[in-house]
């Protein structure tokens, strides 16, 4: 399936972070590339939602909803700065 982009997980990110995050700027922990969360490649049925670096395909974000909780893994980033 074609990748979407970070706009597709904007709502989930609001729930997890409490504010708009697609304009947050992140640095990929593998290639050092910098991009807005909106500009990542997003897969909605991974299972869970996965955002990958457009430059090197590194997994940046994994979000899984379990029994009403959203679990967010951001360890693919070396830095993440909200706008």
């Amino acid at each position, binding site marked *: *399936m*074609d*990748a*979407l*982009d*970070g*706009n*597709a997980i*904007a*709502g989930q990110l*609001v*729930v997890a972070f409490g504010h*708009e995050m*697609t*304009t947050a700027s992140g640095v990929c922990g593998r290639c050092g590339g910098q991009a*807005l969360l*909106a*500009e990542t490649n997003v897969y*909605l*049925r991974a299972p869970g939602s996965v955002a990958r670096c457009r430059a090197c395909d590194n997994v940046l974000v994994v979000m899984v909803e379990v029994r009403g909780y959203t679990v967010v893994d951001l360890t693919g980033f070396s830095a993440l700065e909200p*706008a």
Partner: protein
Amino acid sequence: MVELVEQTRQTKSIVLDPPDWTGHRAGQHVDVRLTADDGYQAQRSYSIASAPEDQHLELTVERLDDGEVSPYLVDELRPGDQLELRGPIGGYFVWERSLGGPLLLIGGGSGIVPLRAMLRHHLATASDVPVRMLYSARSLDDVIYREELMQAGAEHGIDVRFTLTRKQPAGWDGYARRIDRDLIGEVSWPAGERPLVYVCGPTPFVETAAEALVGLGHEPGRVRTERFGPT
């Protein structure tokens, strides 16, 4: 839900009057959640089609035959029904008058929906930035907001161009091919004029347009994209 308006054979606009709505910015979307009697939930994102200045919130939904959510919204929803919404959502694919222009809007299929909100915002605020729109659809019957967009061209000086990729009516004088670098080069301002570009459509459409724009020398930071696909 206030009203359902048929736009094309496959798309309807859902006019909503949500309580406690705090307003939105043109280009944002909402998440719609449906809950079945057995508790099963499905959620999808839909772009807001109305301008912030419009009286009601409008979503325009394309019916996907094998979809879980869109057939219900398009076929089953009735005025007075309640919908569970989350939003407005998004801060990236947003245009406001203060961002200026020139403004180039490139839409494929139902990717026109958030661009229509931007166009209406432009008209409602009497913004004076030059606006151009390129809209790719399969046929004239698939063009959403056809009359409104043609009127924007005829009465408001917006440069609206259509490309019909599968079927063209007799005497069609618009474009009749898929977007590519040549077509975008023809429609866009030169990169030196630094237009602000919004591209929305299915992923392959958006990738083609974005690569073409960057290839033509446009700054990646001034090309904002939103991809959608069946989910």
